[in-house]
């Protein structure tokens, strides 16, 4: 019982003492068991669970952030407000709330490139990008983004000139960041909607640039 490696999971130490059907080790079974307990006690409503999952699977995702970026590219006054007060300007488009109560937008320029990370956990701007991809939550990314940003970006196929100033934003508070990527050259004639379609999640984290190529298969 006092093995610190299992301090959080005392049941694992006691597997041999219990009926295994009551102490499932497979996460899917353990979650099922927990959900049924919480529902039976009236602590959670299963319909609320469905609504939460539906929200993050279908309603809140990187298309939100892409709208913000495209608006900033076509509307200079909006862009100014966005950089001065990200929360308020993004709120104009109806985005905010959980995982985006406080938002700061950081702008990429020919000389400055911004990169977002959370070294301590996996804080991410849910309100504009949805839930984070696995790589963003991985030890590989969280550990190296701050000490070796160029090496990390190279793994995404992005090589930056050595004169570029890289700013890494470690999300240690309830303030979340969104990168405003550079508008791709040759996009002058595109509509706001067409521009939004070019903006990828990865570009808004800062591990990619936006290009005119259709972002098929690219998040």
């Amino acid at each position, binding site marked *: 019982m006092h093995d610190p490696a299992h301090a959080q999971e005392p049941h694992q130490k006691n597997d041999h003492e219990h009926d295994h059907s009551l102490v499932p080790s497979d996460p899917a079974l353990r979650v099922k068991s927990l959900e049924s307990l919480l529902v039976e006690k009236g602590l959670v409503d299963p319909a609320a669970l469905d609504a939460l999952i539906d929200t993050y699977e279908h309603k809140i995702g990187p298309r939100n952030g892409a709208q913000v970026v495209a608006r900033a590219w076509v509307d200079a006054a909006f862009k100014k407000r966005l950089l001065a007060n990200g929360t308020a300007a993004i709120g104009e488009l109806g985005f905010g709330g959980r995982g985006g109560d406080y938002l700061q937008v950081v702008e990429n320029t020919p000389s400055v490139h911004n990169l977002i990370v959370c070294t301590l*956990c996996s804080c991410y701007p849910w309100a504009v990008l949805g839930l984070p991809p696995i790589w963003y939550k991985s030890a590989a990314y969280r550990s190296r983004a701050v000490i070796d940003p160029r090496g990390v970006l190279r793994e995404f196929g992005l090589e930056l000139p050595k004169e570029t100033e890289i700013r890494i934003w470690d999300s240690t508070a309830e303030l979340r960041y969104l990168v405003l990527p550079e508008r791709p050259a040759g996009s002058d004639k595109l509509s706001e909607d067409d521009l939004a379609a070019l903006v990828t999640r990865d570009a808004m984290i800062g591990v990619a640039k936006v290009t005119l190529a259709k972002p098929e298969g690219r998040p």
Partner: protein
Amino acid sequence: MNGVHDMGGMQNMGPVQPEKNEPVFHERWEGRVLALMLASGAWRKWNIDAMRCAIESIAPAEYLRMSYYEKWLAALRELLVKRGLVTRAEIESGIPEACSPKVTPPLSAETVPQAIARGNPVSRDVPAAARFKVGQRVRGRNIHPTGHTRLPRYARGKLGTVERDHGVFVFPDTNAHFLGEKPQHLYSVRFAARELWGEQAAPRDAVYVNLWDDHLEPA
């Protein structure tokens, strides 16, 4: 806590491995865990800092082995028991105790959109004098608390510059342990990459960290 979660600057964690066309959830149970955490959180028996603290309290080897949502599941189980919503016996059996009263969940499918829109506001409209000014040179304090802290190890003892004062926010280091919100100023502090990592870093790169008054001292 100088735990393995505090990953900024660690090496040998392998390459970053992005996944093409990544789904929001890879397994059904992952979405259920996310939803169970949010729906249980609606009881307000804990706060987001306590949740992070519960994740950080997972033993290091387990922390590194577990996926993101496995960590959430472990943390949720601990929070539910420690904050008295369920008993350890109930968690292990998945069955409510005989005397357990049936309660009404605070979150329903109908109130999910409002709850997400309301978010988790942690700025506080209380008077608190800022200890530092924008442009001031500061140093990350050389502290090693055994509890929760949002001051990453890599910033401790390092010189930085206050770039922005975000106003007064709840202090996670006390709030995580239910020791009060201790509202104080939150700053964006710029650390030159070379101050953090030495000559191997590019000369113009910088890491921006959100830190509170109690994390900083005048330089």
